[in-house]
C-alpha cells in the first residue's frame, strides 16, 4: 500500500513522516518518529498505555490512524516535562512510589494530566473513574491515586 505524507506537530515540534494508511498513530510515534514513551499494552483501546492527546483530546493512540494526525497537535509523555523541570504529576509519581514496573506510567501520566486540566479538584472517586481506562497490574492503584490527588493539591496551590 503506498504511503501517505503526514505533517503534524508532536510536543510542539513540527514532524513529518510517511505512514502506511493502516498504521496506527502509536506505531507512527514509536517506529517512525522514535518516540517510544507511549506503550502498546493491548492495541485494542483497553489498557491506556498508549494514551496521548490529539488537539487536546485524550485518545488511545492505538485506535487512531497515523494519517489522522495530519495537521493536528499531538502531545505525548515525552513532552510532559518542561525541559529539565518535571510536571508535578511526574514528581509526585516518583515521590509516592506510584510506579513499580513503570510500563503503565506514561499513559497514566498523560491521562491524569488531562484530568487535572479538566477538573483541578477531583475526588478520589473521580480520579478512579477517570483512570478506569488505564490498566496497572503492579500497584493496585492505591499509590497512583494518592500521587494524582497530591499533584492536584499542589497545582491548586500554585494556581491560588
Amino acid at each position, binding site marked *: 500500500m503506498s504511503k501517505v505524507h503526514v505533517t503534524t506537530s508532536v510536543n510542539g515540534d513540527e514532524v513529518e513522516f510517511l505512514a502506511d494508511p493502516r498504521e496506527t498513530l502509536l506505531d507512527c510515534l514509536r517506529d517512525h518518529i522514535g518516540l517510544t514513551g507511549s506503550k502498546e499494552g493491548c492495541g485494542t483501546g483497553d489498557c491506556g498505555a498508549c494514551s496521548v492527546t490529539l488537539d487536546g483530546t485524550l485518545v488511545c493512540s492505538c485506535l487512531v490512524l497515523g494519517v489522522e494526525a495530519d495537521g493536528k497537535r499531538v502531545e505525548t509523555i515525552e513532552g510532559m516535562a518542561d525541559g529539565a523541570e518535571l510536571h508535578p504529576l511526574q514528581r509526585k509519581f516518583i515521590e509516592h512510589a506510584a510506579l513499580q514496573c513503570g*510500563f503503565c506510567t506514561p499513559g497514566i501520566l498523560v491521562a491524569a494530566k488531562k484530568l487535572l486540566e479538566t477538573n483541578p479538584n477531583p475526588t478520589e472517586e473521580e480520579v478512579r473513574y477517570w483512570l478506569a481506562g488505564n490498566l496497572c497490574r503492579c500497584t*493496585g492503584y492505591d499509590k497512583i491515586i494518592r500521587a494524582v490527588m497530591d499533584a492536584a493539591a499542589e497545582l491548586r496551590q500554585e494556581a491560588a
Partner: protein
Amino acid sequence: MAKDEFKEFKLVGTRPDRPDGLDKVTGRARYGADISAPGMLWAAVLRSPHAHARIVKIDTSKAEALTGVKAVITRADFPTGLTGEDWNLQENTMAGERALYDGHAVAAVAATSKLRAEEAVRLIEVEYEVLPHVIDVDDAIKPDAPVIREGAADATVPEGMPPNVVRYMEFGRGDVEAGFAEADLVMEKTYKTEATHQGYIEPHACMGQLGADGKGEMWVCTQGQWFIRKMCTAVLGLETAQLRVTPSEIGGGFGGKTTIFMEPLSLALSKKAGGKPVKLVMSRSDVLRATGPTASASMDVKIGMKKDGTITGARAEFRMQGGAFPGSPVDMALYCAFAPYKLTNVEHVGYDVLANRPKCAAYRAPGSPMGAFAVESLLDEMCRELDVDPLDMRLKNAVREGDTASYGPKYGSIGLVETLEATKAHPNLSIPLGPNQGRGIAAGYWFNHNGETSVSMAISEDGTAQVSVGTPDIGGSRASIALMTAETLGIPYEDVRVNVVETGALGVNEPTHGSRATFASGKAAVIAAGHAITEMCKRAANEWGIDPEAVEWVDGAAQPAGDNAGKFPPMSIAEIAGKMGSTGGPISGHHESVPEGVGASFGCHVVDVEVDPETGRTTILRYLVVQDAGRAIHPAYVEGQYQGGAAQGIGWALNEAYIYGDDGRLQNTVFLDYRVPVASDLPMIDTVIVEVPNPGHPYGVRGVGETGITPPLPAIANAIQEATGARLCELPMSPPKVLAAIKAKGG
C-alpha cells in the same frame, strides 16, 4: 508497623526516590519493544486456530515469494533429538507434528516491516486434521479423554493411572484417619479455580540476532536473562556462552517472564535471514493465548477440628492442569496449603495433568493461591459451624519457630503469630458492617527463594560505588539494593548506582523470581561491599604502616580501631578511592553463591465486601494486608508489593478466568473480555508491614513479592458467605455465580 522511624539504620527503612524513577516518568526507560537496530526485520507468527490438530502440511511458498520477506521458519528449521524440558520448550515454541492448543505457533516470518510480516503470515497455508481435545482438568483424567501425549508421564505415576496424569505425588505424616476420629467436626469439600493470566501490561518482546557462526545477541524483556540464554540455546542447539542476552526494562512479569515462549523464533529467523536483527513483539491476544497463564485446579480438602478450634487432621487432594506440558504447580500448592498450621496428622496427594491449553508459567506464589482458596475457605466454614473466631482459630494452630511444616522442613524464625496479632489489633476489624456486607479473613504463605546469585560491586575513583546485579528490577529492587549497599559502605544512597547487567557481565543468576531479588542480590551486594571494605581498610593500613586488622570501617571511612592502633585521622572512601591506582589498583568486591538463610513469609488479609442481592455483584469496601517482611528496606515498595498482590488476588477471586468455547478456543483474548481490576473497582488497600527480621539476611529481609496474592481468594469467598449466607467453592465469584448461589440458598 512500617518502621520509617526505626533508627537502627541510617538508610535501611527510608523511602528515597527510586534511581530509575526519572527514566520511567519521562518515557525514556527502554522496554522490550523500544529498541531497534540498523537493518532490522520484523517478525510475525502464525498460530493454530485449533485446540488439538495434526499438522498434515505447511506450504510457505506464497509467503516466501512476497517482496520484503526474508525468512520463513517452521519446526523443520529446529534441531531434532531434544529430550525432557528442552523438548517441551522447543515443542511449545513451535508445534511439531501436532498443534496442542489454540494459539500454538506453527510458523513464523521475518520481513522488512511489521505489516509485511503480518501479510506474509496470512499467505502460509496449513492443512490440519482436527483431533478431539480436552480443556477441563477433571475431564482430562476421565478414562475416555483424548490423550495429549503418550509416554509423557514420569516415574512418579503409578501403573494404571489415566494417560494425561504425568506426575503424581503423595506425602504427609501421622495418621489422618485417627485425626479425623478425634475431631468434633469433620468437613470435606471440593473447590475449583480457573486459569488466570499474570496480565503484565507489557507484552513479550525481543530483538534477536544470530549469525551462521552460532554467535548471537538478544535484547528482551525478561525476569531472567540467564534463563533466556540457557533455554534459547538449548532449543536451537547452540553453545550457551555464544548467546549474549541483555535484559530491557520489564513491564511486569509476576513469574510469566521467567521462561521462553517466542524468543528462539527471532534468533532462528535472524539466522535464516543472514544474521539481520529480528524484532518480535507479541499482541495481547498472543500473550493470552500462547504464553503461560497459571494452572486450573480441582481440589478436595478434608479437615477435622475440635470444638475449641484445634485442627486434628487435614487431607488435600489436588488435581491441576498446566497445559499440554508437565509442570503445573500442584506440588507447590500442596506444600503451601496447610503451611500456616501446626499439624500432626496431614496427608497430601497431587496430580499433574495435561490438557489442550498453553504451557503454564509461574504466577506469583505459584500454586499457593489455589490451595489457600480451598483450605482457608473450608477452615472458615468450620469456624462458623463451631462458632470459633477465625483469627483465634488461626492463632491457636499457628506454626512457630522450630515447628515442623506441614510439608516437612522445620521452620526457622517466622512471623505468623506476630502477623495474626497485628491483624487482630487493626482498627478495620472493629468497623461495623451494614446489610449485605461481610468481612472475610484468610492467611497465606510463601517460602521465598534464594537461587544462583552473582553480584559485583566496584568503587569508583571518586568514592562512589556501582553494583552490577543479574536480577531485573521489576518493582524497585535497584532502590533496595542501593539502600543496603550504601548502608554497608556508610555512604549516601545517591552515591550508589545499581546496574542490571547482561549475561556477559556476571556468572549465572536466576531470574527475579521467588521474591528473591532483594534477599539474594541484596545479600550478595552487602557481602561484596564487605570485601571492598576489607580492601579499603588494608589500603589505609598500608599507608599508616599499621596492621590491617587494626583498622575499622566507620561511616564511610577507615580509622584506627582504638588508641593502641595508632593515631591517624579517618581516611574517607573518596580519599582511598582517589589514589587506588597507586595503592594497588581497582577496588571491588564480588560475591557468588546460592545464599543460605531464606526466610519464609506469612500474611493475613481482611476484606469487607458488599454484595448486591439483585445482581450478585461484589464490591470491595475495605481491604487490609498484614504481612511479615522480615525488614522493609524501602517500605513504600514493600507496601506496593502487598497492594499489587492483593489487587491481582481480587481480580482472580471476582473476575478473571480463561473462558473456552466447546471448540477448545480461548474466547477472552483481549483485556475487554479478560477483565483485570481497574482503578474504579478497588478501594485504597491498607497495609501493615510486620517486621520479624530474618536472621539469614544481613538486614533481615525475607522477600515480599508473592505471599500477598494468596489470601485474597479465600478471604473474599469468606466475606461473601458472611454477606449473603452463600458459600462459593468455584472461582471466579462473578455476579452470575454469586447470584445463583444466593438463589440456591433461597435468599
